[in-house]
C-alpha cells in the first residue's frame, strides 16, 4: 500500500515545537552540566524564543486538531511568561532547598507545552493529552523535593485527585463522543446548534465542567489546592497557581464558548453557583489561615471565582476581561511568591511581623502585591477587577458583581493583615534575605508590570 503522508504545516505549532524539543534536549544536556543554572538560563532563553514565535503562529494544522488563534495566543503568552518568571525565581530557591535537579527545568517546559496544547486544542483528544502532559509534569514537580514529606504528600494528593478528575473528564468526553460522533470541538458546536439540549448532553457537559473546575480549583472541587500549594516547593506553587489555572480557563473558554455555545441556558446557572461558592469559600477560609502559602492558595481559589464571572457573562468583553485578569494575576501572584522565596524565614504569616523595619524594600514590594491582589488602585489588580466587573455589569449581571465586590472587600482583611503585620507590628527577629540576580529581575518585572498596568490600563485592555 502506498500511503502518501502529507507533511503538516508546522508554523502554527512552532512555539510548542520549540519548547518540547528544547525540553528534550535539556534532558540530555543535564548529564553534561554540573551547574544546573546553565539549564535555567537556557530555559529562559527558550521561553523567550517561543514567545517570539507566538505572535506569528496563527492558523490550523495537523488535520485541524490544532488551532492557533488570537485567543490561544493570549494564553500562550501568559503560559510563557509564567514559565520565565518561575525559572527566574527557582534558580536560587532550588539550590537552597537541595533539590537542584536538571529535570526540574525540563519538566517546567513540558508542563508549559501541555498548557499551550490545551489552549490550542481543537480536538478533544489533543485537549486531553495536553492536559495530561501538563498534569503529569506538575505532579512530579510538586513532589520534586523528594526528601521532604510535605512535598511527597502534596504530590500524592495532587496525583490521586488529578487522576480522579481526569477519569471524570474522560467519562464526559466519551459521552460527548457518543452523542455527537465526533471529537472536534467545532463540529460538536455545529451538531448542538441543530440538535439542541438533552439530558445526556447536559450530563456530559457537567462531567467536563467538574473536571475543569478541579483544574482551576473552583469550589467544591478546590480542596486539593491548599494542601498541594502548601506542600509543593514554593517556586512550583507559584507555577501551579497560575499555569494550570490559566490552562483550565483557556479550555473552559474554548469549550463553553464554542462547543456548548448554543447550550448557554444549561451551563450558566451551574457556573454562577460555582463562582459564588468559590468566592465564598476562598475568601472566608483565607481569613483563618496562618501560613502564607496556604493563604495565597485560598486567595487563588477566590480569584478563580472572580474569573469565572468573565466566563459567565457570555460576551466577548467578559472573555477578554477574564484573560486580562489572568495576565494581571500572573504578575501580582508571581510577585508575591517571589517575595516569599526571597525571605529566608518560614512561610508563617507571623514571620512577616515588623518586616518593614528590617527590610523596608522587601516589605514595600509585598505591600504593593498585596494591594494589587486586593484590587486597590493604582495597581494592576484594580484594573483587572474593574474590567471584569464592568463587563459583567454591561451584560446585566450587576447582582453578581455586588456579591463579588462584597467578597472582594472581605479579601482586604487577609491581604492587609500581611501589610499590617509588616508595618504595624514589632519585629521578633531580624529578617534576612537571599537575593539573587534572577530573582531580583523577576521582582522588577512583576512590580513594574503591576504599576504599568495599573497606571496605563490601555496596555492590556482592548
Amino acid at each position: 500500500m502506498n500511503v502518501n503522508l502529507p507533511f503538516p504545516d508546522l508554523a502554527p505549532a512552532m512555539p510548542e515545537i520549540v519548547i518540547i524539543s528544547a525540553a528534550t534536549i535539556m534532558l540530555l544536556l543535564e548529564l553534561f552540566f554540573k551547574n544546573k543554572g546553565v539549564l535555567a538560563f537556557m530555559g529562559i532563553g527558550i521561553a523567550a524564543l517561543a514567545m517570539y514565535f507566538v505572535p506569528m503562529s496563527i492558523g490550523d494544522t495537523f488535520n485541524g486538531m490544532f488551532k492557533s488563534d488570537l485567543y490561544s495566543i493570549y494564553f500562550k503568552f501568559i503560559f510563557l511568561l509564567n514559565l520565565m518568571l518561575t525559572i527566574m525565581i527557582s534558580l536560587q530557591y532550588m539550590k537552597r532547598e537541595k533539590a537542584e535537579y536538571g529535570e526540574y527545568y525540563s519538566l517546567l517546559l513540558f508542563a508549559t507545552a501541555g498548557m499551550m496544547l490545551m489552549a490550542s486544542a481543537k480536538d478533544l483528544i489533543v485537549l486531553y493529552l495536553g492536559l495530561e502532559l501538563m498534569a503529569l509534569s506538575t505532579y512530579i514537580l510538586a513532589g520534586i523535593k523528594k526528601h521532604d514529606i510535605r512535598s511527597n504528600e502534596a504530590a500524592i494528593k495532587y496525583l490521586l485527585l488529578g487522576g480522579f478528575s481526569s477519569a471524570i473528564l474522560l467519562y464526559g468526553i466519551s459521552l460527548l463522543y457518543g452523542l455527537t460522533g465526533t471529537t472536534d470541538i467545532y463540529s460538536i458546536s455545529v451538531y448542538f446548534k441543530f440538535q439542541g439540549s438533552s439530558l445526556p448532553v447536559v450530563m456530559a457537559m457537567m462531567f467536563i465542567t467538574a473536571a475543569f473546575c478541579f483544574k482551576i480549583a473552583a469550589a467544591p472541587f478546590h480542596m486539593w489546592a491548599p494542601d498541594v500549594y502548601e506542600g509543593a516547593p514554593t517556586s512550583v506553587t507559584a507555577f501551579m497557581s497560575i499555569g494550570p489555572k490559566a490552562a483550565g480557563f483557556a479550555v473552559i473558554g474554548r469549550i463553553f464558548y464554542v462547543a456548548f455555545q448554543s447550550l448557554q441556558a444549561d451551563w450558566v446557572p451551574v457556573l454562577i453557583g460555582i463562582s459564588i461558592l468559590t468566592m465564598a469559600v476562598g475568601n472566608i477560609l483565607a481569613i483563618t489561615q496562618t501560613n502564607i502559602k496556604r493563604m495565597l492558595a485560598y486567595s487563588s481559589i477566590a480569584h478563580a471565582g472572580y474569573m469565572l464571572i468573565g466566563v459567565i457573562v457570555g460576551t466577548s468583553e467578559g472573555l477578554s476581561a477574564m484573560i486580562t485578569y489572568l495576565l494581571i494575576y500572573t504578575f501580582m501572584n508571581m510577585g508575591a511568591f517571589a517575595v516569599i522565596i526571597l525571605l529566608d524565614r518560614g512561610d508563617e504569616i507571623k514571620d512577616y511581623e515588623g518586616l518593614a523595619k528590617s527590610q523596608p524594600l522587601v516589605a514595600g514590594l509585598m505591600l504593593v502585591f498585596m494591594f494589587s491582589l486586593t484590587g486597590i488602585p493604582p495597581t494592576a489588580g484594580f484594573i483587572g477587577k474593574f474590567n471584569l466587573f464592568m463587563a459583567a455589569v454591561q451584560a446585566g449581571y450587576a447582582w453578581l458583581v455586588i456579591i463579588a465586590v462584597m467578597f472582594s472587600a472581605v479579601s482586604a482583611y487577609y491581604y492587609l493583615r500581611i501589610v499590617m503585620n509588616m508595618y504595624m507590628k514589632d519585629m521578633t527577629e531580624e529578617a534576612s534575605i537571599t537575593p539573587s540576580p534572577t530573582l531580583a529581575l523577576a521582582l522588577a518585572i512583576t512590580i513594574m508590570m503591576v504599576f504599568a498596568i495599573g497606571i496605563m490600563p490601555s496596555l492590556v485592555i482592548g
Partner: protein
Amino acid sequence: MLPILFFLYHAVVIIALSVVIITRRNPVHSVLWMLVLFFHIASLYLFLNAEFLAAVQIILYAGAILVLFLFVIMMLNIKHELNADICIGEWPIGVAIGLSVMTLVILGIGKFSHGPMGQASIEAVKAETHTKALGRVLYMDYLFPFEIASIILLIAIVGAIVLAKKEKASGG
C-alpha cells in the same frame, strides 16, 4: 439471542469483579482479580470488533501496568495491611454519594441517542483488517496526538527516575 447472552455474561462478570476488586483487603488479591477483569474486558472488545485493542488491553494493561502494581505492592508491608481498616470511617457517605451519582447517570443516559454514523463500517474494516485500518487512522489522522503521547511516556520515565532513583552521596 447469543450475542445478548454473551454480553450479559460479560456485564455481570465485569461488574462483579469490579466490586470484588475494590472490596479485597489484600491488594495482591485485588490485582489478581483485576487481571481476570481485564481478560473479560478484552473479550468484550473482541466482541465489538476491536481486535487490536483487545490485544493491547492484555499486553499493556495486564502485562505492564498490573505487573508494576504488583512490584510496588511487594515493596510495601502487606502484613500491616491485613490488620488495618480497609475503608475510611465515612464510607457510608462515600457509597451514598456514589450511588446517587449513579442514579443520576442512569437517569441521564436513559434518553441517549447516538450521533451520526461514520465511514468505518464493519465490512470495510473487515476488508482491510482491523489493525491496518486502525493503524492508518492513528498514523495519518492522529499523528499529532500520537507524538504528544510519546512525550507523555517520556515524562513518565523522567518522573519515575527523578522521584525513585537513589541519591548519590553528594546529594546532587
